[in-house]
Every structure is written in structure tokens, then in C-alpha cells.
């Protein structure tokens, strides 16, 4: 209905929107009833396991699967294209062959019996070492930009002008900070590994795929299997983590379908933990050399940086466009270099580019505060700029400033603050404070919704979206129930099938916005039709009706009303069906984009052991309109904890000689555990000015700042910068020794 005015209820009128509502499927998860792709069991199903290349860079000379084929319980051996003699393997763990058997044991034994001859090739994995990468010929230009307030004259040689101009700007700076910063590569480390359980029914494929892209992966299967897309159904009722790494069926998902086709039996193929960490996604590393100059007030006037990053064997890295992060100095020169290694390729990792950019540049701003002996809070505040000239991402400096004030109160910043390295030590323990700020877009994704309202009052929606941990089902139901004036449990949301109306992938904080758009529109359209029917019955103008508390009633005259069920009987014999669509990028009163957030960390560092303890972490986040307060807060808690992990614990450790990924098991790949997180305080920044913008995605933004905030807190405690994340005890001790403060 073109004439429906789409809108959200006001804060006062909202019954469900913005309240804390328990997820409808959390009990299914907490009792083990929720079925993930890994959990789907079909009769006569084969279990498949892959053989990964033990070498990071090699050429396949030969592969012999005969012993594997003869292994008791092995039913099928599938050799992948990469294992053909002459093929070049570019990173460790890449799958060469897949063995399907009657049990995990049979498949694993079969894998162990495959014989492969390899020709070893040169290996490069030390992405942190730019000189070594350059010498090895592994670097390429990653783009860059120069901006100066003064323009070169017509007769000036541009390069000469820039050299002189930057020299001048640094000479005129009251403070000059030079530093090298970095953040090592990490992996997605989804707890449910990538993979699928698949079954053919005649010419149709049913694939339970662990995916964050239900509506987009059916075509992926169809293309690779050369079948029609309508012969594929991808299902994903639950997904055990994605974080940006599960957008495609992947070649192993397609291989599972091929094996199922060849054997006539269902197949389950999930990566094992080692493979999950080695080949199923990583976040690019990032290292930077920075020189910045600031005026007497600590406002950065000139920024000059070169950063090098590695997205693994397929190249790519961190865009220069986010350097320096959020802040917008008047003069800057930034260059990016991409380093190609023999490591598994990067995939989008929660807020691509931003966490690394924040960690390697807002640390430099904090070092400016350290050099000035100033309060980091003041230096951050002074560099925010003005609303007419926002920095990277375009979030308003006034929003950051307001959030900083809130965060500082929650942290008790002023009482806790001391200049860098000047805190009162208790024995070997020193405390420190740090902060960082971040931005993200989070505009709503494409989403289509089919809404059915039955004559008996039942309500259900169908939408090809997924729940990667956001609580998508519950969001859909809250929006429907709010709109129709019903309790949450009176409506049902069906998600997780590629046969449902198309909805965008869950990437870039776009899901809640997208499904809120499609569900609100569908529900408002349906309600308009119901109002027409109820209006006749109540002898009232449809425009004068409202849906509240399970009734359709006349505004201002609540006695003239029909119950929801009575209203629905007016629909007739068949359900009322409404479809609604939202196209990404369409201006809408229901959703928006661009948020800012502020985070502060308080830590204790033990100078003797190098161990860091998180005391308190404050996250203040602008997200526009909150749909479900409970799950929204959880997303921020989770992002902060993920941030603590990559700040203090998590790193991909490689052997420089062999290129082996040395810690690809969870006992060695350190993540934060429950005892590591300290106190976390989450606060949404939601004045009317921000709420009225509508729904904005939340998944990415709060994971961006922890790296810089925690690094800055450690630096504030020690008076010494530990330049590279994760800040392991060893790195703390090394930094202290280098500066003679140990």
C-alpha cells in the first residue's frame, strides 16, 4: 500500500520496542534442542573429513588415495582440484581431498592413509616485517592519499612542495610523536566450524549450511553444481558463529554435495578445529609507522603514516581510507602497503578495517597525550573537530563528546586519572586508564517479508534471514507484535530458509535494520487492511483506529473495539497475505546509518609478570532506535569481550621457516575466558535526536575500540607503549626492558 506512512511509535507509546525482551529461542539453545548444521542427522548419512595440506607453500607432485579407499568404513574419496599434480598450494591447511565414511573414525583413518608427494616452495609469513616482505618481493601498493591545507603553486613540483610542506608543518608543531604500532592477525574461530549437512531428494539439494547468508548461498551451490537455483534449498535455523566468515557455501560445502550425489547418501562435512582456524577466515594484520605533529593545545595538525597489512595469500589489507581513525587532521599523508603471505586468506571480520585502524592510530593520539603530560580525555576531545567537518565515517563530533561525558562518569575517569606512568604503584601493580572512539555505518540491508494473518488470529512471517547471534527471530516478532498490538508470543517468525522471501546477508550490522524495515512495513500494510474491515464493523473511519492490547479500537473511544480474533474473522476464509520489501540505501523513516561510540578501559598491570587484568570497561554506544534492549546490550557485552580477546590474548602464531600456523587448536589459540573480562558497563546513547533516526545496526561498532582503549590503558599504567596487540605478558616485559623501566 503506497499510501501507508511508515513510522515507529514514540518512546512513550511503544509497548515492546526498546524494552528488554527474552529471546524466543534462547531456551532451545540452553537446553540443547536448537539444531545447527552440525547437528542435523539424516538416516544413512556419511561423515566426511578433509585432508589439509601440511605445508604452507608447495606443489603437488602426486596423490594416492588407494589405501584410503580400502580402509574399512570408508565409502568415498573425493579428490579436490587443488590436489591435481602440478597444482600450487598457497597456504597450510587448504583441503586436498575429502574422505566420506560410516563414522568419524573411519573418515579420519581414511584421511590418514592418503599419500601425497609435495615439492616444497619458498615460504613467507612474517607479515610484521616490512623490510623482509619487501626483500621477498611480497609487497604491493595499497593506495594512499595526501591532503594539505595549502595547495602547491602552479609552478611548484608537487612532490617537492609536499616534502617542504610536511617539513614545515612538523617544524611548526609544538609536539611531534613518532611511533610504530600494530595488531597481529587473528582468526574468526567460529565455534561451529564451517560446513554443511546435505541431502539430495531426486534432483533437488537440501543443504543445512552453517551460513550468515541463507538467501544468497542457494545460488552458490547451484552455480558450482550446475543445477537450477530453484533446485536448491539452503537451511540454517541456527548458526554457531560467523563474524563475517560464512557468506558462501565454500568449496567444501559444494564437495559435500558432490559426494552425496556420487554415493546417493546424505553427507555431513564440517571442518575440524585445525582447518577452521587455518583456512576458514582471518582478520588482516596491520602495522604502521606514524609521525604526527600537534599544536600547543594538542590538536593534531599533521599526520604522516605508512602502514602495511596482510590479508594472507590472496593479498588485500586495511584501507588507507580509515587512517587516522575517526580523527580528521587538516594535513595528512597516508600510504598503504599490502603484504602477500602464505597464510589463509582474510575474510570480512566484524567491522572490516576499523578495529585495526583504531588500534594502530588512536594509540598514536594517546602517545601525544603521554608526551604532553596531558589527560588523554582532553586530547581526544580537542581532536574531535566540529559537526560540519566530521572525520572518518561521518559520525557527529557532538555525539562523541556527549558520549565521552557519559562514559567518563560511568568510569569515574577524573578520579581515576593520572598522567601516563605516574600512578601510585602497589608493589609491582600499576593501574591505567585508556579510551578510544569509533564509528560505523550499519544501514539496513535488503529484506523482504511475507506476512500471513489467519482468520483465527494467527500471525506468522516468512523471511530468508538468519540469526548469527543477534536474536533475529525475536526482533522480527517484536516488530510484528508492536505493530499489531499483540504480545510477542502471539506472533511467529519463520527464518532460515532460502525458500523464504529474500533477505540480505548478515554482514556489516545490517540485519536488525533490514528485518525491522520489512516486518514493520508488512505489519503496517496488513493493519491498514484490517482497519478497513474493522472500520466497517465498528462504523468508524479506518484512520481513526488503533491496535492496542490485543484489540482494534477507536482512538479516544476505546469502548468501540473488536478483539484481535474478532477482527481476523472478518478476513474471510483464507489468510490475509502481505509482502513488503526494503531495498538497501533507500531513505526511510524506519532506519538509518552512521553511529559513533566511545569506550574506556581501566586495567591493572603487573610489572613483574607482565600480566594485565581488566578491572572495568565502559561502552557507550549510539544505535539509533533500540528494538530489543536485552539482546542489544548482549551484543555490546560480546563485542567488548571479543575486543578484550584480541587486545590481550588472541593471535595467529606462525613459524617463519615452514609457514606453519602453530597454535591452531583452542588450547593454544588463546581467547578470553570468563575470568578475564572484569566489570563491563554498557550504556546506549539514545536521546530523541538519535532515536528518531530509526534502527541502525549494532553488531560491528562496539568491537572496534577495545584494542586502542586497552592499549592506551596499559600505556597509561606503565608510561611505556606496548606497541603491538595482543599485549601478551612477554610483550609487556619486553617493552619495559627496552625502556629500562623493568
Amino acid at each position, binding site marked *: 500500500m503506497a499510501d501507508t506512512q511508515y513510522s515507529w511509535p514514540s518512546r512513550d507509546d511503544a509497548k515492546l520496542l526498546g524494552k528488554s525482551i*527474552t*529471546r524466543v*529461542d*534462547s*531456551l532451545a*539453545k*540452553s*537446553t*540443547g*534442542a*536448537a*539444531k*545447527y548444521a*552440525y*547437528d542435523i*542427522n539424516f538416516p544413512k548419512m556419511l*561423515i566426511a573429513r578433509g585432508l589439509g595440506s601440511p605445508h604452507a607453500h608447495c606443489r603437488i607432485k602426486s596423490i594416492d588415495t588407494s589405501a584410503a579407499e580400502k580402509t574399512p568404513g570408508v565409502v568415498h574419496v573425493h579428490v579436490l582440484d587443488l590436489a591435481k599434480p602440478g597444482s600450487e598450494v598457497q597456504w597450510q591447511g587448504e583441503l586436498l581431498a575429502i574422505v566420506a565414511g560410516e*563414522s*568419524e*573414525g573411519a573418515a579420519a583413518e581414511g584421511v590418514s592413509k592418503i599419500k601425497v608427494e609435495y615439492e616444497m616452495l619458498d615460504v613467507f609469513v612474517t607479515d610484521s616485517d616490512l623490510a623482509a616482505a619487501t626483500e621477498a618481493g611480497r609487497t604491493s601498493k595499497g593506495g594512499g592519499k595526501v591532503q594539505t591545507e595549502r595547495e602547491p603553486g602552479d609552478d611548484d613540483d608537487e612532490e617537492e612542495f609536499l616534502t617542504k610542506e610536511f617539513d614545515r608543518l612538523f617544524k611548526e608543531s609544538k609536539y611531534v610523536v613518532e611511533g610504530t604500532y600494530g595488531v597481529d592477525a587473528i582468526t574468526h*574461530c*567460529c*565455534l*561451529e566450524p564451517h560446513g554443511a549437512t546435505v541431502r539430495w531428494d531426486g534432483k533437488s539439494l537440501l543443504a543445512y549450511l552453517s551460513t550468515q547468508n541463507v538467501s544468497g548461498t542457494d545460488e552458490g551451490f547451484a552455480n558450482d553444481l550446475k543445477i537450477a537455483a530453484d533446485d536448491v534449498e539452503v537451511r540454517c535455523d*541456527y*548458526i*554457531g*558463529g*560467523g*563474524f563475517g566468515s560464512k557468506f558462501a557455501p565454500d568449496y567444501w560445502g559444494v564437495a559435500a554435495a558432490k559426494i552425496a550425489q556420487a554415493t546417493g547418501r546424505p553427507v555431513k562435512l*564440517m571442518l*575440524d*578445529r585445525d582447518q577452521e582456524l587455518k583456512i576458514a577466515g582471518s582478520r588482516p594484520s596491520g602495522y604502521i609507522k606514524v609521525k604526527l605533529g600537534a599544536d600547543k593545545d594538542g590538536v593534531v595538525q599533521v599526520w604522516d603514516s605508512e602502514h602495511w597489512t596482510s590479508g594472507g595469500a590472496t593479498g588485500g589489507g586495511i584501507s588507507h581510507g580509515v587512517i587516522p581513525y575517526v580523527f580528521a587532521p587538516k594535513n595528512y599523508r597516508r600510504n598503504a602497503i599490502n603484504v602477500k603471505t602464505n597464510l589463509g586468506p582474510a575474510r570480512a571480520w566484524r567491522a572490516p578495517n576499523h578495529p585495526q585502524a583504531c588500534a594502530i592510530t588512536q594509540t598514536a593520539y594517546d602517545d601525544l597525550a603521554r608526551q604532553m603530560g596531558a589527560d588523554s580525555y582532553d586530547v581526544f576531545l580537542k581532536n574531535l573537530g566540529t559537526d560540519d567537518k566530521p572525520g572518518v565515517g561521518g559520525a557527529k563530533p557532538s555525539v562523541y563528546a556527549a558520549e565521552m561525558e557519559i562514559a567518563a562518569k560511568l568510569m569515574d575517569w577524573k578520579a581515576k586519572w593520572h598522567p601516563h606512568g605516574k600512578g601510585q604503584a602497589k608493589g609491582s601493580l600499576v593501574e591505567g586508564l585508556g579510551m578510544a572512539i569509533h564509528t560505523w555505518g550499519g544501514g539496513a540491508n535488503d529484506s523482504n517479508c511475507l506476512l500471513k494473518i489467519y482468520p483465527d488470529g494467527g500471525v506468522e512471517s516468512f523471511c530468508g534471514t538468519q540469526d*548469527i*547471534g*543477534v*536474536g533475529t527471530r525475536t526482533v522480527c516478532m517484536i516488530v510484528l507484535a508492536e505493530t499489531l498490538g499483540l504480545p510477542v508470543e502471539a506472533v511467529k517468525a519463520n527464518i532460515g530458509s532460502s525458500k523464504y522471501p529474500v533477505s540480505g546477508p548478515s554482514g556489516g550490522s545490517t540485519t536488525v535494520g533490514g528485518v525491522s524495515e520489512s516486518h514493520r512495513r508488512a505489519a503496517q500494510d496488513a493493519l491498514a487492511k484490517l482497519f478497513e474491515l474493522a472500520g466497517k464493523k465498528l462504523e468508524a473511519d479506518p484512520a481513526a483506529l488503533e491496535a492496542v492490547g490485543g484489540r482494534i479500537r477507536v482512538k479516544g473511544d476505546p469502548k468501540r473495539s473488536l478483539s484481535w480474533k474478532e477482527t481476523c474473522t472478518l478476513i474471510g476464509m483464507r489468510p490475509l497475505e502481505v509482502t513488503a520489501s526494503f531495498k538497501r540505501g533507500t531513505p526511510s523513516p524506519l532506519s538509518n546509518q552512521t553511529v559513533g561510540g566511545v569506550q574506556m578501559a581501566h586495567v591493572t598491570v603487573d610489572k613483574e609478570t607482565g600480566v594485565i587484568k581488566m578491572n572495568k570497561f565502559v561502552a557507550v554506544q549510539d544505535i539509533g532506535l533500540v528494538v530489543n534492549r*536485552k*539482546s542489544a*546490550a*548482549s*551484543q555490546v*557485552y*560480546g*563485542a*567488548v*569481550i*571479543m575486543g578484550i*580477546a584480541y587486545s590481550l590474548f588472541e593471535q595467529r602464531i606462525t613459524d617463519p621457516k615452514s609457514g606453519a600456523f602453530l597454535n591452531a*587448536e*583452542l*588450547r593454544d589459540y588463546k*581467547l*578470553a*575466558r*570468563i*575470568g578475564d*573480562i572484569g566489570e*563491563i558497563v554498557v550504556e546506549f546513547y539514545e536521546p530523541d535526536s538519535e532515536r528518531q533516526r530509526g534502527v541502525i545496526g549494532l553488531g560491528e561498532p562496539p568491537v572496534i575500540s577495545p584494542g586502542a582503549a586497552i592499549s592506551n590503558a596499559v600505556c597509561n599504567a606503565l608510561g611505556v607503549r606496548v606497541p603491538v596487540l595482543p599485549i601478551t605478558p612477554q610483550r609487556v616485559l619486553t617493552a619495559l626492558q627496552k625502556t629500562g623501566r623493568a
Partner: protein
Amino acid sequence: MTDSWKCSDAAANFSRRDFLRGSSAVAAAASLTAAAVQADAQQASGVAIVSGATGISLDVNGKTHKVSVEPRTTLLDVLRYQLDLTGAKPVSGDGSSGAATVMVDGKPLCASTLLAVACVGRKIQTVESLGGAKPDAVCLAFAEHDATQCGFCTPGFVVAVRAFLDKHPQATEAEIRSGLNGNLCRCGTYANVIQAAIAVVKGGK
């Protein structure tokens, strides 16, 4: 404190009081030793060498199940593939994630590092035994306090919390933070798990 494990029939003898006696580490060491002695004795008499598939009975969630296992078959594989009890999750082969945590004779153990043949005669309880029409207080608290995001770690975490609170029914927040480090969550639900566990302690369940 009420017994909140949903034990029925065959598992009725299961007592958490047995579990509460002494430290779990000592108990685990003792049972290992006993098992080793038994294995030695059996090997010496030449009767218990198993190879290939063999039928065994496992006591899972109060019912006896006949299953077919090989010596290498893990308890986790039996639960997931033969009994379709997929609550315990395969996250790490080495047990370092805790996602495959189940209770064996009242102790939280990792089903992915236990051989099925070693579980004969032991009472196994999976997260599914905490569900049903009247879910356990821990399952309810996880839901109420939103201690699930993707949810893949959740069943193992629920069993670990249940076992921990059975042993420490009056656990403080500090004890909860230090006592549940065997379980990994990638989404970062720890803050909510802590709140859920505190709520269970306060509720006395």
C-alpha cells in the same frame, strides 16, 4: 537445595551428594587409577581386548541404550550420531572449549575426550536431561539473562554451570568468575553467564 537434575528411573540412584564429597580432582585421579588397574587386570586375563565394532550398553539420561562402537569411538560421537543427542558440541578435539561437557557419574567431563567403551556402567547425563517440560533453573536463567548469542557453546556452558553450582550452591560472583574457565564462548556471553549463575544461586536452585 533441591536436586534439579531431571533424573528418572535408572538414574534415580544418582546423587549429587556423592559428587560433593571431597575434591573433584582427587576423585578424578582416584577413578582414573581404578580404571587403569581394572584395565590391566582385564588385559592380563585376555578378555577385554576390543577391536572393530562391538555392542555396548550406555546409561544416558536415565535410560539404557544399546549402541555399536569401536574402541576409538568417543562418547560424543555416540551421543550425537547414534542417540541424536546433539546438545554437546564438537568444538575442539582436545576438550579445551568445554562445549562437549556432559556429566559422567556426577562429574562434568568432556565427551569428546572420553572413549565410549570407558563409559559402560557409568551414568551419563547430557544437557537434554535439563530440558523438557520443566527446564532446569540454569537453562531458564541462561534464557532470562540472555546468556546465549549464537548459542553453540551454550549447552556445554549450561552443564558446566549446573555442575559448578551443584558443588558450590552458595558460590559468590568471584567464585563464579574463577570457577568456570573451562568453557569458551566466541560471541562473548560471559557477562550474561555470570549474571545467570548469580541468579541461580540467589534462587536457591
